[in-house]
């Protein structure tokens, strides 16, 4: 079955849930993620956004039954996710969820994320690894980073977020349009929470359990994790100053 035939089948059942799967050189992992998502009761449409892979990630995803959006070159996680959101907004999906192509986000949580959105008290539902017991434990540098950003977000926005670096989330149309308009090009998770809060979106967390990568190694080591903390902290503080300047500029 070609991608187009698959898309025709997807459109005919009018799925209102889109699972966006950003992937870069995940030829071995992405078919399993796609198959798990397509087997769910929610029957989501699955869009793999191939971030300029040098292996056959796109072909593998298509063969597993996903739609594939191919970026012409490696553009970074932010641009990749944003392209997937834009694709979903163009087609009017009610729910857009993100599941990474390495298989660490268990697709089975799509139902819980969608159900939390359906309750109507949130525009953005974030899967938190720290609200549930068990599952894969990330490195101590990443856990430290999460705690630091939780503290920073609380100071900057007043929002209590236990897992601000989580990449497993679902948004409704309102929040999707906010993220489609602006999304940080690298390390976008924490920044996007601030942007959503600034836009008046409501954020809610639900517990998820993270899995170990199915194959291969993560591209984020300890040095990159520290760099990430440093860079995002500065970006958040500057963003806060920028917001205050905008608010001040609007006052006569």
């Amino acid at each position, binding site marked *: 079955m070609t991608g187009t035939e698959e898309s025709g089948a997807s459109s005919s059942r009018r799925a209102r849930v889109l699972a966006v799967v950003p992937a870069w050189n995940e030829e071995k992992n992405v078919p399993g993620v796609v198959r798990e998502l397509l087997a769910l009761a929610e029957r989501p449409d699955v869009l793999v956004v191939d971030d300029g892979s040098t292996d056959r990630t796109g072909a593998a995803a298509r063969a597993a039954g996903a739609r594939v959006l191919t970026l012409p070159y490696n553009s970074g996680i932010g*641009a990749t996710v944003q392209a997937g959101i834009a694709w979903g907004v163009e087609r009017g999906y009610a729910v857009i969820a993100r599941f990474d192509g390495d298989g660490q986000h268990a697709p089975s949580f799509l139902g819980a994320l969608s159900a939390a959105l359906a309750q109507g008290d949130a525009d953005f539902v974030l899967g938190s690894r720290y609200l549930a017991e068990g599952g894969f434990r990330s490195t101590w540098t990443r856990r430290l980073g999460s705690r630091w950003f939780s503290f920073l977000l609380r100071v900057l926005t007043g929002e209590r977020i236990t897992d601000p670096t989580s990449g497993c989330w679902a948004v409704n149309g309102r929040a999707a349009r906010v993220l489609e308009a602006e999304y940080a090009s690298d390390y976008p998770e924490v920044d996007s929470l601030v942007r959503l809060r600034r836009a008046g979106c409501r954020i809610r967390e639900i517990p998820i359990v993270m899995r170990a990568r199915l194959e291969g190694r993560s591209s984020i080591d300890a040095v990159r994790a520290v760099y990430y903390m440093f860079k995002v902290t500065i970006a958040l503080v500057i963003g806060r100053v920028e917001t205050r300047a905008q608010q001040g500029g609007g006052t006569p």
Partner: protein
Amino acid sequence: MKFFQIVAIVGSVLATAFIVELIRRRRIQHVLWLPWLAATIAPGLLAAYIPGWAGAAHLLGIKYEPLLLVVLASAIAFAMLLYLSVVVSSLIQKNLRLAQELALLRSRLDEVAPLPEREPS
């Protein structure tokens, strides 16, 4: 006029001619040539009229006049690097948007008439 002034002016003229040639061949885009032109013309002007900037140095309380040139050169280098960073950042942002737009358009085209599978680059 002293020998070093002549050398500086000739060097400045040659550098300016080189920049002009790059502009003429469109090897430098319009947003980038102005600071380079200023950077090549300025040394010639400074060498041609030393009393002007030496007097300015005295007015600023600088006893060793050439230090004013060091300060000016540092400020210009800083400004040029900053300007280039802003231009490059803007280009990166536009390039990412174009890449996304291209991917979205290819996806739409694929819905109408599927394109052959592309080999990974």
